[in-house]
């Protein structure tokens, strides 16, 4: 499917005390099934806002968003969200956190054993079978984020939406989770939209990098196709000339043409 997620002429404005603030303007984006898209830009450019629009947590002021040819009218289990701060419920075990999502989507058609099976599988996918009965406070930040990913994937969403999922993690854990995510995405053939401000992360993971201009009234500045073959290996890519070219391409966009207003 060519146009799995469609964003057409979307504008987003917020009413503030000083009047109307236009966050996003003239956003047009088509995403194919199985594509991995990253949204990159300086903080405040509205990339999270765009993600929340696709998630249905926000409604656009103007324009329309479609997922599998259906208008996005609110949040739904067809779009799994991984939040930046994991947002696990601290009083539920990892298993229960994931089960909550599974139950909502599949309880109408499947029995208890199948629901439990799905939950086990989702946690196995992120290598957390050993931590199923632990509470979120008893595991590390990286593990929490993996539970968050398991929760989103367990719903078998059409699209996986990730809002700076690894932003709060240390560099080593981040790299490890990126590698795991690459494997999971290859395995499940998921369509992913990820917000990031990490250039290496964007080049390593994406099929296309959507680079956004600075707000207010931010829009898509440029879309960069990443043709690097998969599976990708971060060590091999580190010296790859094409990787270097793409990387400097993104850097040039962010720091030359659209340097942050405060930094300039």
């Amino acid at each position: 499917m060519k146009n799995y997620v469609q964003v057409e002429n979307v504008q987003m404005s917020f009413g503030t005390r000083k009047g109307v603030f236009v966050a996003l303007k003239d956003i047009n984006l088509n995403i194919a099934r199985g594509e991995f898209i990253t949204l990159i830009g300086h903080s405040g450019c509205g990339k999270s806002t765009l993600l929340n629009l696709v998630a249905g947590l926000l409604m656009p002021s103007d324009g329309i968003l479609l997922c599998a040819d259906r208008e996005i009218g609110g949040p739904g289990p067809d779009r799994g969200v991984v939040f930046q701060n994991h947002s696990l419920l601290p009083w539920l075990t990892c298993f229960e956190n994931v089960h909550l999502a599974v139950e909502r989507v599949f309880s109408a058609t499947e029995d208890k054993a199948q629901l439990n099976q799905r939950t086990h599988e989702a946690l196995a996918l992120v290598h957390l079978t050993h931590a199923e009965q632990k509470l979120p406070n008893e595991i590390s930040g990286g593990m929490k984020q993996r539970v968050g990913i398991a929760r989103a994937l367990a719903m078998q969403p059409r699209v996986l939406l990730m809002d700076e999922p690894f932003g709060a993690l240390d560099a080593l854990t981040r790299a490890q989770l990126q590698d795991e995510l690459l494997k999971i995405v290859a395995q499940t053939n998921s369509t992913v939209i990820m917000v990031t401000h990490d250039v290496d992360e964007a080049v390593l993971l994406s099929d296309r990098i959507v680079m956004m201009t600075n707000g207010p009234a931010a829009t898509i500045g440029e879309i960069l196709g990443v043709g690097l073959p998969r599976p990708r290996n971060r060590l091999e890519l580190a010296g790859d000339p094409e990787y270097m070219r793409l990387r400097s391409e993104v850097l040039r966009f962010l720091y030359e043409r659209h340097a942050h207003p405060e930094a300039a």
Partner: protein
Amino acid sequence: MKYRCFFGEHLFPPLIGAVLFLVVWMILAQSSEALPGPLKTWDSAVALFSDPFYNHGPNDQGIGWNILNSLGRVGVGFGLAALIGIPLGFIVGRVEFIDKMTSPIISMLRPVSPLAWLPIGLLVFKAANPAAIWVIFISSIWPMIINTAMGVRQLPQDYLNVARVLNLSEWKIFTKILFPATLPYMLTGIRLAIGTAWLVIVAAEMLTGGVGIGFWVWDEWNNLNVEHIIIAIFVVGIVGLLLEMLLVKLAKRFSY
């Protein structure tokens, strides 16, 4: 060494405090004719607690019965307040319109001394016991409404976003998110409420009479049995402390 540290840090200071307290009490008792000293009070307490559950008719019952009767009144008044106050707190916290509707009334009534409600209770129930329970009810309902509502209001947006993204039903939102997230606040409300309730019961019983620690104090004042009054003060203090400790322990179990 370790034992000494534990003793030095945790047992020694309170012990010194207790000894100083007794010394000051003794000096005060010596310089006053009416005030009995610690030893006299202790003897009297031993006699009193050797038979805590005698029953010589409605006006002369053991200290145990008096305490249990007071706790019973607090329990009923407090339980009714929880039954009404906690759901009300959820509604006030969740629905902004109702919050704005009720908040001036709550703000106005909350600082009123609970005893001011006693005549209303006597008037409506035409009996002393329900009136005392009514006073406990009124004094404990405010912290429960206010703290529960505060907990609901402070529910992190993240959790609500999770609920929206997972498309949870209202019932699931309540049982899996709203209730557990609010529980610590609710328990704070309950703790404040039981503290006030236990504070108020003594005064309420002094006014209403019957079997109870408050009336017992008043009765012993009429008998000019000052030792018993002092014992009652300690008993009220210790029971209050135990209630508080019980709830703190409960609250610890539910903090995440």
